[in-house]
């Protein structure tokens, strides 16, 4: 199994054909989970006695924030695969993930800010989590910008790989330093981190949505990867055949 599996992942054609099917599965699964989870969270989960209904934003904010961070790690894994095994598909994945990662980071920032309005009375607080999320957004932007600036796709991929690896080493340091900075400058009264244990009626829909967003991200990344693979492999025989058949 081992090596064959590896070769398959190295083949853009194999990926393109399979990814179409996986994408379909992921898409419908994500849609079902997200509709269920969001409706449950919005309508069926009990009201938070402290925050009122505004807490219902977590059913979007928390999964998206998780994803934003996980995707950077995923990008780093892709960078390692690209450098160690020179697998072109890893570079394609890196390119798609950077865009999706930025979108999710932006979404989590905006939802966090809007949640902050009723909770803290202001849209933006230099809270540790918001701040490190903001930096993460800049890191994603850097990767996207670097790729856009370099013409040759192979070269752009490697440059982004270097940047992502340097970034992923720094990310925990950034996170911890921002947390420390926050305690240095602000009294702990504004913190939202300490939460009482959630009842199952609250966390089950949250879990559903987390799963839903992860699968939705997989769906989006697969879709974007397919398009990029097609574009990059435009010269190869299988793409020509595929397109002329269509």
């Amino acid at each position, binding site marked *: 199994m081992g090596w064959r599996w590896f070769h398959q992942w190295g083949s853009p054609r194999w990926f393109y054909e399979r990814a179409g099917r996986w994408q379909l599965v992921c*898409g419908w699964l994500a849609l079902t989970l*997200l509709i269920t989870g*969001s409706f*449950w969270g*919005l*309508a*069926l*989960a*009990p*009201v938070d006695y402290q925050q*009122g*209904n*505004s807490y*219902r*934003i977590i059913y*979007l*904010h928390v999964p*998206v924030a998780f994803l934003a961070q996980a995707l950077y790690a995923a990008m780093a894994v892709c960078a390692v695969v690209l450098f160690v095994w020179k697998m072109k598909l890893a570079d394609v994945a890196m390119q798609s993930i950077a865009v*999706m990662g930025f*979108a*999710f980071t932006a*979404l989590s920032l*905006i*939802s966090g800010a*809007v*949640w902050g*309005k*009723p909770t803290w009375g202001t849209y933006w607080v230099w809270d540790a989590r918001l701040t490190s999320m903001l930096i993460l957004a800049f890191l994603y932007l850097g990767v996207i910008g670097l790729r856009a600036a370099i013409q040759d796709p192979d070269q752009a991929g490697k440059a982004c790989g270097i940047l992502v690896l340097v970034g992923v080493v720094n990310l925990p340091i950034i996170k911890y330093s921002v947390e420390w900075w926050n305690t240095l400058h602000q009294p702990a009264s504004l913190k939202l981190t300490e939460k009482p244990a959630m009842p*199952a*009626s609250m966390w089950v829909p949250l879990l559903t949505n987390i799963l839903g967003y992860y699968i*939705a991200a997989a*769906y*989006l990344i697969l*879709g*974007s990867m*397919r*398009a*990029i693979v*097609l*574009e990059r492999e*435009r010269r190869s025989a299988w*793409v*020509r055949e595929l*397109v*002329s058949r*269509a």
Partner: protein
Amino acid sequence: MLEFQFASLTAFFEMAPHGIYVWPIYGLGVLVLGGLTFANARQHRRAVRMIQRNLEREETHES
């Protein structure tokens, strides 16, 4: 456990007093997911069209 938490549908949409924060965020979420899906489809379509054009150009060159 699974019961509707609001007195009526209007109350649900009002989600007093935080409806104006909650609903736009969910709207934005739908917009982002939908927008990315659409962007992917468009990129894919463009790639196919570009390859088709290239193929046609080559055919006219050969003939």
